[in-house]
């Protein structure tokens, strides 16, 4: 370590006696960096150890090229279309994506390893120390900058011309509101439609069926007779209106359950006032949309008459008004009042009496 550091002016970069590394060290010094340890990994050129590293490196880089080429070839030539071609094509097809992954992975891995090995085994061993310049700026600097900032206020004359400042603020505020207004005003949509809160109605409302009660239908739109559901069985039903089974009526899927005799009696006996008359013989229909987060509560345990929502494991007791008996749901599944029409098909006598799906602020 030298005891004397020449100042920037004293240093003569054109001095022919300086090696390139002398220049590097001087540059580093000017950047606040001291290279304290700097030793080549292989001081004697051409040793066996050095040649071994060189061989490894060359192998890795050539492997990179090979695998890169293999990727491009596989990408173009390997069978990649699902369900096409002869038996060989079909046999090779499943390996298309794995081959892409393996070749590109190996290509990049050998490149990465090569670069890392290069830097760890061939670059000179180095320890450099750089000074930090933490802490606040010089106090004079702080004062000068503060004065410059405060002077802006003086220049604008805000104290002298207070009214102009206030007028500016009064003028700028609505301009700021323009951005907010555009965003909020264009996106905002009231939860009401035709004077009704959309969260209170579903596709079972007769108004979607020209005022006639809505039939319970399969997903393909065919109506359902009581004989279609075996005892202890359950099916998912949709409102028999146009697009009734699509996501347009995502709040309407309903579970129609054919209870066993004694379960049906128990259900009728336990029915709350709200659900009186909703049951038709041994059939009950409950909303399939979980009152917790809106997933379809679709796992029905026949023996215990429990319904489980697979998203957060809320469980509902079908025989007791579909009351939540476990998990995070706090509300019972709404019951759809059903009956059978003159033609022998299930219909909903009216819409759900309470909102279906997850709860919200305005929900009674």
């Amino acid at each position: 370590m030298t005891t004397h550091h020449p100042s920037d002016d004293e240093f003569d970069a054109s001095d022919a006696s300086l090696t390139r590394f002398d220049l590097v060290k001087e540059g580093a010094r000017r950047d606040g960096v001291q290279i304290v340890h700097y030793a080549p990994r292989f001081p004697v050129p051409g040793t066996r150890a050095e040649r071994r590293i060189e061989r490894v490196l060359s192998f890795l880089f050539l492997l990179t090229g090979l695998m890169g080429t293999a990727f491009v070839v596989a990408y173009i030539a390997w069978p990649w279309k699902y369900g096409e071609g002869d038996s060989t094509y079909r046999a090779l097809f499943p390996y298309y994506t794995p081959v892409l992954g393996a070749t590109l992975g190996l290509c990049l891995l050998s490149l990465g390893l090569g670069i890392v090995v290069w830097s760890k085994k061939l670059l000179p061993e180095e320890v450099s120390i750089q000074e930090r310049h933490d802490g606040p700026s010089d106090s004079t600097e702080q004062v000068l900058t503060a004065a410059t900032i405060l002077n802006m206020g003086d220049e604008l004359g805000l104290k002298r011309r207070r009214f102009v400042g206030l007028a500016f603020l009064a003028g700028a505020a609505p301009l700021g509101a323009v951005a907010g207004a555009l965003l909020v005003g264009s996106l905002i949509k009231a939860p009401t439609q035709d004077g009704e809160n959309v969260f209170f109605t579903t596709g079972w409302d007769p108004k979607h069926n020209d005022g006639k009660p809505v039939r319970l239908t399969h997903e393909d739109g065919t109506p359902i007779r009581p004989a279609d559901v075996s005892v202890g069985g359950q099916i998912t039903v949709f409102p028999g209106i146009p697009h009734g089974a699509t996501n347009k009526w995502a709040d309407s899927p309903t579970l129609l359950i054919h209870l066993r005799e004694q379960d049906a009696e128990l259900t009728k006996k336990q029915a709350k006032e709200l659900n009186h008359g909703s049951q038709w013989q041994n059939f009950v229909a409950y909303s399939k949309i979980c009152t917790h987060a809106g997933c379809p509560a679709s796992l029905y345990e026949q023996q215990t008459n429990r319904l489980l929502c697979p998203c957060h494991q809320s469980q509902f007791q079908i025989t007791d008004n579909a009351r939540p008996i476990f998990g995070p749901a706090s509300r019972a599944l709404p019951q759809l009042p059903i009956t059978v029409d003159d033609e022998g098909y299930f219909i909903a006598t009216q819409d759900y009496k309470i909102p279906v799906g997850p709860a919200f602020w305005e929900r009674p």
Partner: protein
Amino acid sequence: MKRRKIDVRALPANSARALDERFQAATPLRRLMNKVFPDHWSFLLGEIALYSFIVLLLSGIFLALFFDPSLREVVYDGSYAPLRGVEMSQAYNTALHISFDVRGGLFMRQMHHWAALLFMAAIVVHMFRVFFTGAFRKPREANWIVGVLLFWMGFLEGFGGYSLPDDALSGTGLRIASAIMLSIPIVGTWVTTSLFGGEFPGEVILDRLYIVHVLLVPGALLGLISVHMGLLVKQKHTQWPGPGRTNNNVVGVRMFPGFAAKAGGFFMIVFAMIAALAGLFQINPIWLFGPYKAAVVSAASQPDWYVMFLDGSTRLFPAWEIRFDFFYGDGYTIPPIFWPTVVLPGILTMLPIFYPFIEARFSKDKEVHNLLQRPRDNPLRTALGAMAIAFYVVLLISGGNDVVADKFHISLNAMTWAGRIGILIVPPLAYYVAFRVALGLQQHDREVLAHGVETGIIRRLPDGKFVEIHQPLPSGNGHGPSDEEAHHGLEYGGWVVPKKMNRLGALAPTVKGFFYPIEKAGPAPKPRQLDDDRDREEITSGH
């Protein structure tokens, strides 16, 4: 006019001169290349996140060329026979198209998804590193906050990403998101209908989510990452304590070529891992799930791992609904889902953001810290971190409690109760254990500094007592401990204390080689001959 011949050999120097005449780049360029970076494996964790993000941008641009986020109903007519003729949204249709009818499309889709998982994982592990080593302390509080925001932005970006394909799983996720929005008091229904353009699912949500996913959030991520990197360069990296390392310097290698080469190589290795995962390990096989239908769900519906802890909190939170019944109207409701999905993330955002200031206030520490702390040297922080991780892990496991129940034949309800009780008991337990472990490790360090390393050599004293010989550590000047040091023990330097003889050079170093030795074992150091044979009396059972 005769054409001037270009001197090729002088071209680099001339162009460099020409550039410097215009941009005065020489000094700043050299300063950048000479910037010193400290080295430690734990500093590479954040880099993984950065490189994953680059892969995400690249693969994302590829996917955007083929994806159409429309909810318009179409009938599938692509290569995948099992779904032919099925009605589905254009979004799901094009996601299938990418998977089956775009050459290499499935590979790129899986690469995008795997990179997203790795991005979030790297952020979380990097955050652990920064927290447990105290790297967030003054002057780096702002960068810590940027990091917290990056986590939540990545979370949003990931959620948006896996909601876009409109398969059964992603639709279910969106359904739950709408329920979460609905649960917000007073404005919930308005927020939901405004964002979804009506009742769930509406017709516009994926178009809106798409622009959020490909422009707004990536833009925010890019901006935050730039700030994160800029502050890192400005404030310089922290370093571990060690010989020559002080609070006022950085000891390491210069950025070029040493650090840049290692980082560049590491980028390629991370990229390679993502590519290999993308090709060899299937992720999110949307064609098996089918299109989203409001009435369809399957068991084991889990979100991506980084969202799972909130799914867990949603499963665990009891059915506590708050009702406001007034003498007029039908009253108002705060659904139970509001607490674990809106309030909890709010707390989990604000608490980490303020943590550096809270810690500084309680420890009355206003100093600038550029040296990292070993987790054991700050037992309180380490214990708090362990507590937070325990809290997180209980939620994470609960996010898949149905799968755990199924695979291990445990009652599902028992899993829920285990989670509910666990979330109260496990974190304090983790706090206590981590605190004690940190203190124990500290004590052992002090013990070695005071008495030296255990040699494993047992001596019998003349009075029949057995003692183990300890090898005192060499002190900083290399001449053995001074009298004062011998009395009080060496001073702890905040860094690893050697605890084995071969760390002191007293035993032969380990022979290198994983499968077979690639070098000859050196001669073991000879045990010192004792000059007096009487010391080697036969040890007899003393009766």
